[in-house]
């Protein structure tokens, strides 16, 4: 009897004490800074700019350096890339007449950007691909037919050179089959140079 009454009092005390302590914990949350990110319109920086380097967003093609080799089209496991590259009979040059990527189908596996010899097709940090119809989700990169890029020993064209340099850097850092260097290594290489 005595012990059960002690338990009874103990229960009352425990209830009051634990509720008191719990209320103190939640009260302390009243003055803590909320951790909500108010995407999309009230973020301090664009979310795209905060994404990691190897983020696989919507694909983009630099037609200036696309060789028309169709390696990406062949690599794509779900055939979401369609390229038409006929040879012009007169100038004997390859013309790019169509380069479509259906981002509704694309599964962002990155297999297309790995075999690309120039880094023309690459992922961007963009991810806001929502649209109102399936048709409008097909990205058409060729507005009017352009000549395919011919690789040279040294690129001298002032317009194409920076694009090519960026593409090759992308290949090196991102799209090499073994996954490229770890993020720490480029810094070391820079400091060594």
């Amino acid at each position, binding site marked *: 009897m005595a012990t059960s009454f002690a338990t*009874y009092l103990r*229960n*009352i005390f425990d209830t009051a004490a634990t*509720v*008191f*302590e*719990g*209320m*103190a*914990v*939640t*009260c*302390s*949350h*009243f*003055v*803590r*800074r*909320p*951790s*909500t990110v*108010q995407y999309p319109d009230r973020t301090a920086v664009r979310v795209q700019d905060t994404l990691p380097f190897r983020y696989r967003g919507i694909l983009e093609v630099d037609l200036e350096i696309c060789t028309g080799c169709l390696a990406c089209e062949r690599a794509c496991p779900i055939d979401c890339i369609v390229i038409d590259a006929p040879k012009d009979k007169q100038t004997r040059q390859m013309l790019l007449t169509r380069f479509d990527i259906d981002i509704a189908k694309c599964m962002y596996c990155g297999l297309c950007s790995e075999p690309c010899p120039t880094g023309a097709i690459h992922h961007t940090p963009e991810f806001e691909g929502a649209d109102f119809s399936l048709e409008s989700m097909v990205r058409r990169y060729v507005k009017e037919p352009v000549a395919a890029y011919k690789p040279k020993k040294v690129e001298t064209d002032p317009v194409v050179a920076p694009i090519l340099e960026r593409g090759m850097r992308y290949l090196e850092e991102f799209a090499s089959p073994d996954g490229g260097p770890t993020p720490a290594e480029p810094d070391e290489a820079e400091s060594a140079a």
Partner: protein
Amino acid sequence: MQDFLDGLIEQGTFGHAPAQVVYAIGIVAVAAIVIFGFVLNVAGVTTFIERRVWARIQSRIGPNRVGPQGILQWLADGIKLLMKEEVIPAQADPRLFKLAPYVVTMGFVAAFVAIPFSSALVAADLNVGILYITAVTSLVVVGILMAGWASNNKWSLIGGIRAAAQIVSYEIPAALSIFPIVLITGTLSTQGIIRAQGWAPWSWFLFYNPFTFVAFWILFTALLAEGNRTPFDLPEAESELVAGFVTEYSGARYLFFFLVEWGNLYVISAVLVTLFLGGWQVPFALSDHPVVRNLLQFLTFFAKAYFGVILMMWIRATLPRIRVDQLMSTCWKYLVPIAFANFVGTAVWVAIWPNGNRPVWYLMTAGGFALLGYFFYRVGFHLRRSGAQLLLSPFS
């Protein structure tokens, strides 16, 4: 209120209209003013504030897009619900199903007849005021049971039955915790109980003696349970019963249940403030002008009551829901015996010191403030330990 109308009739404001007609119009006018001017708005704004309070406790922001800081969110929600289609299940009892929300709303709104706003602002200063409030708020259980039964749905029925069991059980400790105050003041009138207290914490009945201090917390717990609030929200436990007795409701009738649920918070707080926290008492020296004085009294009462509302939101964000057997054992094994002991203790106390024991009153107040100080010490402890970034502003 009646005195006011009698005065106007004597002045001949209404010509030769019969007094009963004037009274009837007066009742409707007062009801309309109280409901549209106060109850609806308070219940609505409470839903918004509750969401913001929870959000901050959970490190979120909460609704902040509709209007400045999201203050119009409750209007948007209300309009949305009013525009929605009302679905009545084919197997339901349509008459009872339609009637239930109004019974619930009536039981809740009727409490505002006796809830004072200031020394002059009260719909009717009933001489049985606090008993009347206890009685009419129990009417809510009839509506809830009606809703649960008429929905013809197992979840609704279980929710309704749980609500009935819970409210009927917790009426007892609630009533037993009101008795000590009635013993002290010798009146059931809400205004009379407030007049027996003073503006300062050391003349509130909360600190009158140790028994009333305990009675306050028992009444608080019991009223939480009667209002179906967490940790006693078993009748509408989302994880078990979908939404309990409101499962089948939609549109405007659903809105009525929500109005009652959130409006009830204010009623619960108002009862506690009236009985234990000095009601609308303000230091008399502040103003002699009747309008200014009543305004100050109204603001005091509202501030105290709304602090109670925020306390209940805070509890909801803190405590988990208890089991049905725990609910019953809490009531019958703990609250009822302790409330009885309080009642007897206060009776003896009043017999020994009919006018209260001043030193004990001061001592209890000091103890209360010491407890509050310790609470904030613990809050500071948790803040320091977490090392979290602070944001003191309630806005985002």
